[in-house]
């Protein structure tokens, strides 16, 4: 979507609102909001995290540029959407991918290609993609290289360290060994919460620091780039289900806080599910979308084969988004009911 000059615009009947908003402005603001979480990831996982994120951004931008050149479209790289997709994809990758024996540094490059070319450009470019490009890129990488994508580094002590101990993510421990073991690993409950909040734990680069993500999310909310409907209904549904069914044995004994601030829940709810293009555009539909995401996430976390379900939950709800929009759209004022219109046509 390029910015048109004023005299090229088609003007409809008044009233009008004058606005400075453009696609590129939105994209760069969202990237800015992601910065705290990305910096936290780089702080905890060191230079490797920086390399992986940069690799994703560069290969996304290059894929977009190349594709547009080959099909002869006008270059829209400057609008920042490829940069944002690359950044989000990089923040969803484990830092351990930056390794050369075994060689896995090609994974981010191929994932970026899938995200930009197959998920976005083949559908007709920004604004028409059905699925969130960054999430398809990550899902594709996870299915294709299941081992490389699930090696999690412990937050490194030294910033420059290239070697890191591997460990399980908190959700992995929760799935395999239960909540008592999880608290044991981190010392006590307070310690567990602070580690999860600050991001000092194993996980993907940008998903670990709940506080940094929250700062970015609230910034977007304050600026009016996202509305509360999707994040609140997403997190609320997940918290209720975690509280009711998350415990061992008895109902209402689960710990919703651990589920909310671990895994990709925060990043997913604030930055992935709220993508304009792939979520419903009507408020009522957004709440349905958020509830669906929360429900599916917890279903996969508690009953499924994967320890983490945020990515799949959002992707599955992406499939339903056009249908939700269809279902909740309001009738055009004064329009004849569809059934009657059909009969008239006959």
């Amino acid at each position, binding site marked *: 979507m390029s910015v048109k000059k004023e005299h090229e615009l088609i003007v409809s009947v008044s009233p009008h609102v004058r606005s400075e908003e453009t696609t590129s402005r939105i994209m760069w603001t969202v990237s800015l909001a992601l910065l705290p979480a990305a910096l936290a990831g780089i702080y905890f996982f060191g230079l490797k995290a920086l390399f992986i994120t940069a690799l994703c951004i560069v290969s996304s931008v290059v894929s977009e540029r190349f594709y547009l050149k080959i*099909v002869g479209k006008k270059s829209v790289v400057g609008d920042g959407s490829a940069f944002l997709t690359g950044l989000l994809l990089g923040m969803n990758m484990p830092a351990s991918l930056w390794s050369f024996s075994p060689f896995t540094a090609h994974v981010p490059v191929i994932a970026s290609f899938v995200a930009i070319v*197959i*998920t976005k*450009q*083949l*559908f*007709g*470019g920004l604004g*028409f993609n*059905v*699925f969130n490009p960054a999430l*398809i890129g990550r*899902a*594709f990488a996870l*299915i294709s290289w299941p081992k490389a994508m699930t090696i999690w580094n412990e937050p490194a002590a030294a910033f420059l360290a290239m070697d890191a101990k591997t460990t399980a993510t908190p959700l992995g421990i929760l799935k395999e060994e239960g909540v008592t073991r999880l608290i044991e690993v981190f010392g006590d409950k307070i310690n567990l919460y602070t580690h999860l909040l600050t991001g000092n734990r194993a996980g993907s680069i940008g998903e670990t620091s709940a506080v940094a993500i929250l700062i970015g999310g609230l910034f977007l909310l304050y600026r009016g780039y996202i509305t509360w409907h999707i994040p609140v209904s997403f997190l609320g549904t997940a918290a209720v289900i975690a509280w009711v069914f998350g415990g061992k044995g008895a109902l209402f004994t689960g710990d919703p806080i651990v589920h909310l601030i671990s895994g990709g829940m925060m990043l997913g709810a604030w930055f992935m599910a709220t993508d304009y293009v792939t979520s419903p555009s009507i408020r009522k539909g957004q709440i349905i979308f958020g509830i669906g995401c929360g429900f*599916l996430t917890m*279903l*996969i976390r508690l*009953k*499924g*084969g*994967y320890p983490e*379900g945020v*990515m*799949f*939950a959002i*992707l*599955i709800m*992406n*499939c*339903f988004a*056009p*249908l939700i929009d*269809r279902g909740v759209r309001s009738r055009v004022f004064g329009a004849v009911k569809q059934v009657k219109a059909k009969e008239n046509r*006959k």
Partner: protein
Amino acid sequence: MSNEFIKLFELILSASLINNFVFTRFLGLCIFFGVSKKMETAVGMSITFTAVMMISAAMSWVIFNFIMVPLDITFLKIIVFIGIIAGLVQASDTIMRKITPGLYYKLGIYLALISTNCIILAVPLVNAGEKYSLLESLAFAFGSGIGFALALIIMASIREKLELADVPAPFKGLPMAFIVTGLIALAFTGFSGLITL
């Protein structure tokens, strides 16, 4: 009693969502791509398909358990089931021509093609193989029908949205439908390991 009820519910859920025939086993794709261009035909096909599926599953179950098993001719099940399905499809073909001629002409060749659909043959075969009871067979058939309906309706809503998109010329139409199906299947892998029957 409640245990049996949960089993039935799990069967429906498993057949419709978790082991969705279209997105996890890639069966029945011919009709799936054929009629998912428009929402109207997708809905019509879903209803017809589920109805034919449930009746054929029930009839196959009765014939399999009361005729074929006692006579020890279960090796003929593929041919017998195809016969049952073909008869049913012919019947629904005639009924629909009388009741909803508009939809009948829109569905066109695909209505007759239900008889060679993989899902509609797979369901009685799975029912026979797993030795499901009549209720379980019906639940499985219902779940599969709902799953196929869900796949068709999601796909129709996405394809109607794509009508407006600037898809590159070589990918217009069917190629794009294949890519969308692949991506939906990628999303549905998240369900793997959820219910193991």
